[in-house]
């Protein structure tokens, strides 16, 4: 009974309640102290719990209380579980989260909704931690939906603008579509496992018994039960983690304040889909067909998002698509069975993407909320510190050794390489190729972003000239800390062939050991890892060099490409995000609204109310009119009817009597 685990999510919640209720009265200083202090305490508690897990070697657990609990039928407790995986995730969330809270003090200064902002941010931390710590799928689902709610609230934080609200709503609904599948997955788990406890869902024996069963689905025929569950859960993950086909909300989500983008839409929430996969690793491993699908979706998302990122001029949009692309990487890794690499990328991505977003926030803040990179340029001089840290982040994401992204991305690519070329899987080979190409594109568009923002000639509005200053204080400090983390984060999990111990992978229990391999096989594996690493270095390097060239001396080359036929086509597609939003609008959203309208008029108004309800009333009235004529008001007429009636009755009576007499 480790009740202190409860404090990890509870503390930010207290911050939410306090700031939400009293924030308006107590002043910004107190609001910031509470809002930042409590997550930091959460971080410390997580740290102590982590130390405990490291020292003792066994996870911590809080049994909690019954939640949705019908004795003997549905038993879902409210209980928390803190193992290696959760520990790392908690540390990242509370650590990066606290830094972003501190950053926000500077960024949000003077905003009329200051206390509201911090209340939401704390609420987000609560739900995110609950998602991570929840010991069963449904408790995780509370966090899962809760972070979606906070995302909704924070995207629409500046709700006076309709576009922001629309973006928030879009995010929530896209997530809900994913959650619909997630919920079905939960139902299947509960039906066939009889419980939602993580321990049962990851128990190999139980999975085997369930895996033997199949489901018959219309159109698809007979499908393995575990495969179905995994696909459904994965669809849930595509919503939260912005994968094809539900990724379109994430770029729009950039409408929120930039620190929110850093925390929610880059570092933590969007990676919860990957976390889900890692948490349920044995279940996912039992569904190879589903894994292939995941790898494919991941790789395609990575490519598509990278292509779109080329054509974006909004600095945050570039980062947003880059996030989608990196998330695609993570799912590709899951798909090829490299859960450890995927999770490692979650961690490093949290560092460098948070850094990049906060850097862009620093730029936007300095530029008085100008986000268009075409109106930037040459900011290196005004914002030297931001420039350096942003560059660190860029190189990290591009995969330049020895920065964080290099290690994690290399591991992912190797996993694909291994399954594709060593394992001889055609699909994996293809997806590896896509991911490999994307690695070069990532380097290219990130350098493009840096070049347009910080290098070259200044294209700043004349009004802003001279007003652009390096934001100091909390903003600078946060950038520094994250830059260090992005630079060194990769050393958490140095692979064995480079002389490391893959410590993160082992600690989280996601790393597959090489115990069964002979010396020789291990040797061959290491050789392959070297080959893969050299390849990825080459592609990243060429992407970088090409970008340096294009945005440095080789402007002509760039112009020539842009003006060429395929260049124009690509440019248009990229700038318009491949018309996916338009496609969704015209195929799903608008027809649905039209049909609803039509149904309202046809079925409700005309058929039911018009024909059936008013029709009945009309019928009654008309029949009444018909019989009204009989009411002449002429009394002898009535009497005649009466007399005739009596006669008929008499006749019947007599008839009856006569028959009775016959008996």
């Amino acid at each position: 009974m480790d009740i202190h685990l409860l404090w990890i999510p509870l503390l930010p919640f207290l911050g939410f309640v306090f700031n939400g209720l009293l924030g308006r009265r107590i002043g910004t200083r107190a609001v910031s102290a509470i809002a930042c202090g409590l997550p930091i305490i959460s971080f410390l508690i997580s740290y102590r719990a982590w130390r405990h897990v490291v020292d003792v070697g066994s996870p911590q657990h809080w049994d909690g209380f019954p939640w949705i609990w019908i004795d003997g039928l549905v038993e879902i407790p409210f209980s928390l579980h803190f193992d290696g995986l959760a520990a790392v995730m908690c540390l990242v969330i509370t650590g990066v989260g606290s830094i972003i809270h501190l950053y926000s003090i500077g960024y949000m200064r003077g905003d009329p909704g200051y206390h509201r902002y911090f209340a939401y941010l704390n609420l987000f931390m609560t739900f995110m931690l609950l998602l991570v710590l929840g010991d069963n799928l449904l408790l995780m689902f509370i966090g899962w939906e809760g972070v979606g709610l906070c995302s909704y609230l924070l995207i629409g934080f500046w709700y006076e603008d309709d576009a922001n609200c629309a973006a928030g709503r879009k995010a929530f609904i896209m997530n809900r579509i994913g959650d619909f599948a997630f919920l079905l997955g939960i139902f299947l788990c509960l039906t066939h496992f009889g419980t939602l406890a993580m321990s049962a869902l990851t128990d190999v024996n139980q999975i085997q018994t369930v895996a033997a069963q199949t489901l018959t689905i219309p159109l698809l025929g007979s499908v393995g039960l575990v495969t179905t569950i995994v696909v459904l859960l994965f669809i849930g993950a595509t919503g939260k983690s912005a994968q094809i086909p539900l990724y379109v909300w994430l770029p729009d989500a950039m409408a929120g304040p930039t620190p929110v983008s850093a925390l929610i839409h880059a570092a933590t929430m969007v990676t919860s889909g990957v976390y889900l996969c890692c948490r349920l690793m044995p279940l996912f491993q039992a569904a190879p067909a589903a894994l292939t699908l995941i790898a494919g979706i991941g790789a395609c998302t990575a490519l598509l998002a990278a292509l779109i990122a080329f054509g974006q001029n909004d600095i945050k949009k570039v980062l947003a698509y880059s996030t989608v692309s990196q998330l695609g990487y993570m799912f590709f890794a899951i798909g090829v069975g490299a859960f450890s690499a995927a999770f490692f990328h979650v961690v490093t991505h949290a560092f460098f993407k948070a850094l990049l977003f906060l850097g862009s926030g620093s730029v936007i803040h300095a530029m008085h909320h100008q986000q268009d990179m075409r109106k930037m340029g040459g900011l290196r001089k005004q914002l030297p510190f931001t420039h350096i840290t942003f560059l660190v982040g860029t190189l990290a994401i591009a995969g330049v050794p020895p920065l964080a992204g290099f290690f994690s991305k290399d591991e992912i690519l190797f996993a694909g390489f291994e399954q594709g070329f060593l394992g001889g899987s055609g699909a994996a080979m293809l997806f590896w190729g896509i991911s490999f190409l994307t690695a070069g594109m990532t380097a290219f568009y990130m350098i493009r972003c840096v070049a347009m923002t910080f290098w070259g000639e200044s294209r700043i509005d004349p009004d802003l000239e001279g007003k652009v200053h390096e934001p100091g204080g909390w903003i600078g400090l946060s950038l520094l800390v994250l830059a260090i983390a992005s630079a060194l984060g990769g050393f958490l999990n140095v692979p064995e062939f480079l002389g490391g111990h893959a410590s993160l992978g082992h600690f989280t229990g996601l790393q597959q050991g090489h115990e069964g391999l002979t010396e020789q096989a291990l040797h061959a594996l290491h050789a392959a890892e070297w080959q893969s690493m050299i390849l990825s270095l080459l592609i990243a390097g060429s992407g970088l060099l090409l970008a340096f060239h294009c945005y440095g001396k080789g402007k002509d080359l760039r112009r020539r490409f842009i003006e060429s036929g395929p260049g124009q086509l690509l440019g248009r597609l990229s700038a318009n995000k491949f018309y996916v939003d338009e496609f969704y609008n015209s195929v799903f959203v608008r027809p649905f609204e039209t049909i609803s309208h039509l149904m309202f008029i046809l079925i409700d108004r005309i058929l039911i109310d018009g024909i059936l309800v008013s029709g009945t009333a009309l019928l009654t009235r008309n029949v009444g009119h018909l019989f009204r004529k009989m009411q002449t008001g002429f009394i002898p007429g009535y009497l005649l009817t009466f007399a005739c009636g009596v006669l008929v009755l008499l006749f019947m009576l007599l008839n009856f009597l006569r028959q009775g007499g016959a008996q």
Partner: protein
Amino acid sequence: MFSLATLLYLSALLFSIGTYGVLARRNILVVLMSLELMLNAVNIAIVSFGRAHALTAFSGEHGGQIFTLMVLAVAAAEAAIGLSLLLVIWRRWKSIDLRQLCQLNG
């Protein structure tokens, strides 16, 4: 003395005349008179039955006569109310023709 059948024929005849009067005449006064005729036809029938079944009837020897007295009383009350209504109708519409008094038509 007359037999029961003869008396019942008389009663039926009176009743039919009364019914005809009620149905065919338009003057309320005549209708009321015809109504009286019908009541009295029934009275004749009751008295006749009373006499025919005097020994076996449950109500004893004079059951028929007693019942007839009841009907006469009720008929008197009815005639009183009917005539007073008639008076009111006359004052209100200056007519006692049923054809003109059909305001309750639909």
